[in-house]
């Protein structure tokens, strides 16, 4: 069983997850969308890089909870199938070919 979000992963990802969770607050989200560097001040440079690039896989490997990543995705208008495709190392088109109803998103 890999990628289980356990207490080790949660501890490792706490700072990044707290930032992502913060995007549920309208003011913090507005700051991030308008002045991302200002909003990301509390993150390490490595973490800021991942967020800037919307590198879903890197954030996941770093300890981000999928459900915290969803907050960033919603703020940036990214859908879950796009994130899942990134975790699989596929393009969205490749991933949708593996689905029964590609239009249901």
């Amino acid at each position: 069983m890999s990628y289980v979000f356990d207490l080790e992963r949660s501890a490792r990802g706490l700072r990044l997850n707290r930032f992502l969770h913060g995007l549920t607050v309208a003011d913090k989200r507005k700051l991030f969308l308008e002045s991302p560097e200002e909003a990301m001040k509390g993150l390490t440079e490595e973490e800021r890089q991942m967020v800037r690039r919307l590198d879903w896989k890197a954030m996941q490997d770093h300890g981000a909870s999928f459900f915290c990543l969803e907050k960033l995705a919603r703020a940036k208008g990214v859908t879950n199938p796009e994130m899942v495709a990134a975790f699989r190392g596929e393009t969205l088109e490749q991933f949708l070919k593996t689905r029964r109803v590609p239009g249901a998103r």
Partner: protein
Amino acid sequence: MAKIIGGIGTSHVPTIAMAFDKGKREDPDWKPLFQGYARVASWLEEKRPDVLFFCFNDHASSFFFDHYPTFALGVSEQYAIADEGSGPRRIPPLKGHAALSRHIARSLVDAEFDISIFQDVPLDHGLHSPLTMMWPSQPDWPGRVVPLVVNVIQQPLPKPSRCFALGKALRRAIESYPEDLKVAMVGTGGLSHQMIGDRAGFNDERWDREFLELIERDPERLAGMSIEDFMRLGGNEGAEIIMWLIMRGALAPNARKIHQNYYLPMTTAMAVAVFE
């Protein structure tokens, strides 16, 4: 006295709410899902429960890992709709039943289920993505909800056997409430899906259908399985179906499934079932 009139098991995928909010009822890609919920909506309209008791999970929307509760019961008269990153859904705040919640809290702790208590916390799609498919929100909700938030996102998760036992304790708690109330239990989550890691995009329809049989006929067998079993069979995130066991534990052992729908369009198998 309050009475449990039946139960509902349902997925709580956020795209169910998206399809509802975007009015996809007649869209061929979504029609099979809406049709599956129509029977649930008519069952609720016919039975008119006063309260829906919801077993669901927060998705790091209102609760965070700085203090993540295993079982947390809401005891408010009202719950706002959570902002999950793009503003709250435009549906009315949920009406709670504080007196029933407080009674359940006292009864559960008396039964040695030392749950956390929350109030004035917004609730996320784990509750209202399925709710809008079965209960009209306009002009206002036809009844009240009691929310039980379960940790299914940060290991260690509660054991399936504990969830089933909690359901039984909930039955005693609810049915000892002195007011004549009709209560329907709702267990949410699943079915098979994995959103992350090497198995991102995983599903298993065979396991899903077996689960839908066992939850009716042999929930003890499901309760005897481990979280690892549930993750292996239904995907890491699919293990959240242990919340159906809380609902099932609160029903009569001989409760029967009177409706079921299964639809697997994208990443998560979407199921709904009614028991009475």
